[in-house]
C-alpha cells in the first residue's frame, strides 16, 4: 500500500510556471562550465559573467531586456495555427501544436509587441525557439506581416529577433510562402523609409535566414550565433568534408560581409536606442 496517492497523471506544472527559479539555484554555463545563480544570470541579460556566453532565451526575456520599465503592448496575442494540410507524421499537427502550447504557455513561435526603448517607440517581433524549434508557419508570417503594418501605420521602427530552425514542415508550401509574404511587406516598409533592425540569435537558419532575417537595414547578431541557409549537417553531407572551425558563426558572417555588427546582449538596448536616435527624421 502506498502512503501517497497521485491525483493527476503525469507532470502538470507548466514550464512557464516552473521557470522562476528560486534564489540560490545554480546554473551551469554550457560553454565554460562555470556555475552562477539563476538570479545573477537573469540580472545580466542571461549572459555568462565568466565567458560572455549568451544563454538561449525567448521573447519574455528579450521584451524584459529591451522595453523601458518592462512596459509593452502585445500585438495579435491570440493568433493560433490552423491545420491546412491535415498533416500527420508521428503525431497529428493540431496535437503537436496543442502539446507545444501546453508545454510553453505560448501560442506560437513568435510574439510581437510595441513598447519604448530609452523613450523611443519600437515594434519588436521576437521568436521562441522552444515552440517547435522556432519554426515559421502561417502564424509567424501573419504576425510579422501585421507587425510591419503596425510599424507602417504608426511610423515606428521595427525589430525582428530571429531564433529559428526555418520553415515549419507541417504547413508545407504555406510555410514556404511566409518567406514571400514577409519579404513583400518589408519592401513596403523600406519604401516608407522606416528603419528595420534584424537581430539574428543562436540559431537562425533556413527559410528565416533566406527571407526577413537577412533583409535588415541593419543586420546584427549575437556573439557566436549560428546563422546560415543550409544547416551544418546538410552541408557536411553535401561536400563530404568537415566544416572549418567557426563556420556559419556570427563572426564568420561579419568577415564575409553579411552583418553590420555583432552586439553583446548587455549592450543591445543602448546601441539600438542610439541608432534609432541617429535615424530620427526631423
Amino acid at each position, binding site marked *: 500500500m502506498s502512503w501517497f496517492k497521485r491525483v493527476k497523471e503525469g507532470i502538470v506544472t507548466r514550464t512557464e510556471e516552473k521557470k522562476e527559479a528560486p534564489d540560490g539555484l545554480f546554473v551551469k554555463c554550457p560553454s565554460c562550465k562555470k556555475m552562477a545563480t539563476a538570479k545573477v544570470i537573469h540580472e545580466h541579460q542571461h549572459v555568462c559573467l565568466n565567458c560572455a556566453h549568451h544563454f538561449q532565451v525567448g521573447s519574455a526575456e528579450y521584451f524584459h531586456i529591451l522595453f523601458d520599465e518592462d512596459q509593452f503592448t502585445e500585438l495579435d496575442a491570440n493568433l493560433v495555427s490552423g491545420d491546412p494540410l491535415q498533416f500527420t507524421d508521428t503525431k497529428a499537427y493540431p496535437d503537436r501544436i496543442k502539446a507545444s502550447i501546453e508545454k510553453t504557455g505560448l501560442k506560437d513561435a513568435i510574439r510581437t509587441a510595441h513598447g519604448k526603448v530609452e523613450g523611443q517607440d519600437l515594434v519588436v517581433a521576437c521568436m521562441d525557439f522552444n515552440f517547435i524549434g522556432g519554426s515559421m508557419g502561417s502564424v509567424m508570417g501573419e504576425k510579422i506581416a501585421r507587425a510591419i503594418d503596425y510599424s507602417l501605420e504608426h511610423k515606428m521602427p521595427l525589430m525582428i529577433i530571429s531564433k529559428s530552425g526555418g520553415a515549419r514542415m507541417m504547413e508545407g*508550401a504555406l510555410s514556404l510562402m511566409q518567406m514571400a509574404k514577409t519579404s513583400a511587406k518589408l519592401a513596403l516598409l523600406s519604401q516608407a523609409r522606416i528603419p528595420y533592425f534584424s537581430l539574428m540569435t543562436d540559431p537562425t537558419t533556413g527559410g528565416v535566414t533566406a527571407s526577413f532575417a537577412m533583409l535588415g537595414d541593419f543586420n546584427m547578431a549575437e556573439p557566436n550565433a549560428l546563422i546560415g541557409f543550409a544547416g551544418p549537417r546538410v552541408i557536411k553531407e553535401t561536400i563530404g568534408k568537415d566544416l572549418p572551425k567557426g563556420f556559419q558563426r556570427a563572426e564568420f558572417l561579419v568577415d564575409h560581409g553579411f552583418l553590420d555588427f555583432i552586439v553583446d546582449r548587455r549592450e543591445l538596448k543602448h546601441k539600438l536606442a542610439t541608432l534609432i536616435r541617429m535615424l530620427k527624421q526631423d
Partner: protein
Amino acid sequence: MELELDFEKPVVELKKKLEELKHTEATSKVDLSAAIREMEAKLLELQQQVYGNLTRWQRVQLSRHPERPYALDFIQAICDDFIELFGDRTIADDKAMVGGFGRIGNETIMFIGQQKGRDTKSRKLRNFGMANPEGYRKALRLMKMAEKFNKPIVTLIDTPGAFPGLEAEERGQGEAIARNLLEMSVLKVPVICIVIGEGASGGALGIGIGDKVYMLENTWYSVISPESCSSILWRSWDHKEKAAEALKLTAQDNLDLKLIDGIIEEPLGGAHKDPEAVFKAVKQVIQKDLKALKAKEADVRIEKRIKKFSSMGVVA
C-alpha cells in the same frame, strides 16, 4: 529508347506487344487490323487508368523524368529569337541559372530559369539545377535590366533546391534569396512564374514571386522534398511516398491552397511524351497573361502582387 518509371511498366509492356503485333502484320501480310484496333483501345484505357490516377509521389517522379524538357528547351522552342546573357557581374556565371532576352512576335521578354543537365557531364556543369548565390544575383541583375528597359519577365522554375555548399554559405545563399524575394515583389514590369519541374523550397521561391504563378500538371512545389521530409520525420528516405502525400505538394494541391494561379495541362504520361504540345500551351499562357498584365498600371500590379502573397497562410 523510352525511360520507364516503375508504375509505367504495364503501359510499356502493352505498347511493346502492340508494336510486335504491328510488325507481325507488316511482315506476314495477315490481316490483324481488328486485333490491333482492340489492343490500341486497351492501351488507351490502360494509359488513362495509370496516368489519370497518379499519386503525389508518381507526379514527383514525373517532374524529375530525365527526358522532361528543361528551361532552355522551353525558351528555345517558345522564342523566335533568344540571346542568352551570362554572369552576376561580381563573382561568376552560375550555369545552374540561365537567362536572357527572348522574342515572341513583337514582344521582348526576359526569360530566367534554373537549368538541369541531361548527361553526366552537363549535369555536373549545371550542378543538377542547384544555383549558388551568384545564380540568384545573376537572376536579379537580369530582372533589374528588364525593369530598366520596361520588358516583362518570365521565370521557369526547376530545381531540387538552392545549393547547400560551403562556398554558397560564405557568399550568402540566404541573403541572395531573401534579396530576390523583396526585389521581385516590387518590380515595375509584369512577372510570370511557371514551375516546369521541381519547385523545392527557397531555391525555387528565389525566382518565384510573380503577378501570376503557374505549375505544369506533373510538377511539385513545397517547402521541402519528400525525401528530406521523410528523413527528418521518420529518420529514413523510405517514407518518401507518405511524405509526398502529407506535404500536399502537387499542382492541384497548391491551387486548392490558393498558392498558385493556375495549372498548365500536360499530355498523358507527362511533358516529355509530347514536348511540343507543352511548349505551345506555355506560350499561350504567357501571351494571354502578358496582354492582360500590360493593360494595368505598374503600381496596380505591384499592389496586387503584394496583396496576393500577403494573403497566403491559414491562421485560426
